[in-house]
């Protein structure tokens, strides 16, 4: 039994190396689960999965590791061992060297595949590459179907056929769990990726990840309006109701919180260093437009320009020189000149930028004036808080004048920061 326990613990270590977060309590659950369900392979697999995998996106990693650790003698031989091995190790080679430093000391008994997350992607590629082989493999799988236990490669090609032809293949039984697991995992990773590490490809992926974020964001904004139906007691109405009952306050009346109208003014820095963050924020806010009474978006480098989103593309009038020297002091001055009708008590100003001002005048006094006439000024900074105030960063000066400064280094932080502003 001890050997099995060690094996499970090693298995969990491998999963952790693969990026799955598993707590101590969960590993105890896993051992208990195996004790209860027994060693029959499929049951053990599902038992371990139920105890360890709390996110379907991690399932691909799990399945891959499970095959390695609890291989049956037949599965170990595998249907296309060379083929698969090649694919997986090729994928491992593709991983960045710094990504998974501890991966080397995972002691996989069967095969070394150190990048399970990448490995999951490889499995998808693997399936794709098998698509061409699916037709000849079909007869084979029909005979294999009689066997009590099927081989690993067979499952892949079966799944493939089921998907290709969409027919009643008896082995379609256990559907490919979370077909898009690898994609979900990728989107989740991009949510946490810092903006300043973005490449143009990352930006495209981030835009894909934005759609569900926008939905969540809208829900959160909307909820804040509906919340708190039972806050303060409305004294007058309670007393009035009590008069009908001889003065006993049987029915309590609460003061309804009125939705306040909010006009939003967004200012986003689209100069080199923070442009991805700014564009994503503008797009996110464009999606939540109906939660506000009016939204005016501006972008800036050294001047102010009105921004609009048309079919996912940023349109600005007048066009800006993206390579000019950022000058936020001047920009904020321009905003102040336009204040009539734009900046009122109902206005919330959201500024996105790194406040790196090329040592030009910061004009924090203008921010103070704006904060005085507006409902609030929120500053979102895509820089690491550790670097705030270093070099030419003027964020410390601005921080004194605005209502809040929130770090928004990645999509997740950005969304959280924006959801809190209202």
């Amino acid at each position, binding site marked *: 039994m001890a050997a099995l326990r060690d094996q499970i613990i090693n298995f969990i270590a491998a999963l952790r190396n693969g990026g799955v*977060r598993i*707590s101590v309590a969960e590993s105890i659950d896993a051992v208990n689960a195996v004790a209860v369900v027994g060693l029959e392979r499929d049951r053990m697999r599902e038992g371990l999965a*139920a*105890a360890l995998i709390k996110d379907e996106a991690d399932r691909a990693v799990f399945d891959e590791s499970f095959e390695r650790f609890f291989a049956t003698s037949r599965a170990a031989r595998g249907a296309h061992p060379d083929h698969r091995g090649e694919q997986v190790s090729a994928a491992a080679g593709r991983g960045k060297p710094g990504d998974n430093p501890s991966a080397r000391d995972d002691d996989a008994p069967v095969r070394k595949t150190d990048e399970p997350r990448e490995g999951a992607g490889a499995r998808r590629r693997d399936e794709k590459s098998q698509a061409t082989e699916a037709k000849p493999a079909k007869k084979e799988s029909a005979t294999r179907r009689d066997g009590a236990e099927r081989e690993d490669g067979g499952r892949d090609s079966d799944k493939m056929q089921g998907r290709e032809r*969409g027919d009643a293949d008896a082995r*379609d039984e256990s559907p490919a769990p979370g077909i898009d697991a690898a994609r979900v995992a990728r989107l989740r990773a991009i949510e946490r990726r810092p903006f300043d590490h973005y490449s143009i490809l990352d930006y495209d992926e981030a835009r894909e990840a934005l759609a569900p974020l926008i939905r969540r964001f809208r829900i959160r904004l909307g909820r804040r309006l*509906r919340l708190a139906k039972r806050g303060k007691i409305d004294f007058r109405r309670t007393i009035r109701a009590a008069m009908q009952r001889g003065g006993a306050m049987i029915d*309590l009346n609460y003061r309804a919180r009125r939705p306040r109208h909010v006009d939003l003014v967004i200012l986003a820095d689209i100069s080199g260093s923070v442009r991805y963050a700014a564009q994503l924020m503008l797009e996110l806010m464009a999606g939540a437009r109906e939660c506000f009474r009016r939204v005016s978006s501006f972008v800036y480098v050294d001047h102010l320009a009105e921004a609009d989103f048309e079919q996912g593309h940023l349109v600005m009038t007048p066009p800006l020189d993206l390579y000019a020297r950022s000058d936020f002091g001047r920009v904020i001055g321009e905003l102040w000149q336009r204040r009539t009708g734009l900046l009122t008590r109902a206005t919330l100003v959201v500024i996105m930028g790194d406040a790196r001002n090329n040592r030009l005048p910061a004009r924090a006094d203008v921010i103070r004036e704006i904060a005085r006439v507006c409902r609030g000024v929120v500053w979102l900074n895509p820089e690491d808080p550790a670097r705030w105030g270093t070099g030419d960063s003027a964020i410390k000066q601005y921080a004194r004048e605005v209502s809040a400064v929130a770090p928004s280094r990645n999509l997740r932080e950005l969304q959280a920061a924006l959801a809190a502003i209202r």
Partner: protein
Amino acid sequence: MEITHEQISDGLRRAKYVTNERVETAIFLALALEKPLLIEGPAGAGKTEVAKVVAEILHTELIRLQCYEGLDEARALYEWNYQKQLLRMQAGEHQGLRWEELSEHIFSRDFLLERPLLRAITSASRVVLLIDEIDKADEEFEAFLLELLSDFQISVPELGTLKAHERPAVILTSNRARELSEALRRRCLHLFIDFPGTEQERKIIELKVPDLDAKLAAEAARFVGAIRKLGLRKPPSIAETLDWARALVRLGVRELDTDAVRTALGVLLKHEDDRAKVEAKASSLAPRKR
């Protein structure tokens, strides 16, 4: 009660819940280890049904808490019956009770309005507690569930901590409208239920709509499986498939050709653009062409 894996399989079969090893094992583990089970998956894949079936297997009551935005402790857990307390106080005035006696009285269980969570905890026998669509509730509510899920106890400030006599079997479902917290996930076993494969869906149709011709059932299952892959706004759920199968029976459809598919499509698809999409492809999707 000792529960075996076979009992679960039998129970599921008897409840006409067609499933696979994964679902069986997860349910069994949740009951055997007395852990909450978090079920995720697309809408209409049969998540809520699991709870009903488990209640049936255990021959016990199902207590259901439907989550929604703004759900608070007062609705989920307990609330003091303020009106009743007031009446008691007024009655007490005439008897000349002292404050200590009175307060002891009005903060007792008699004056507590039990909401689903408290009911599940204080129930004398083992019940099934279904916390449905937990993703719809606020994050604060989720945090508040943690005590319940890990220790099966609830703290009521005036009464102290109430501990479950019999740990309820807790089942949570989520459609992933938002990400659930790690803390919650850690405390639960996890199960992902996807739409069934074609073969599995055929079995479901045959079990639940026995009037439908077997050949037609297979074709219907295949058709539904195919349109789920079209990337619709709302892919048809299992319940809708069953409704559709019943509709086919009532319409006296013998063969699933393009016309037959068109007539009853409203049962299956609830969005006009989905409908247009499927109708455009109906001729290629329908198993039998005319």
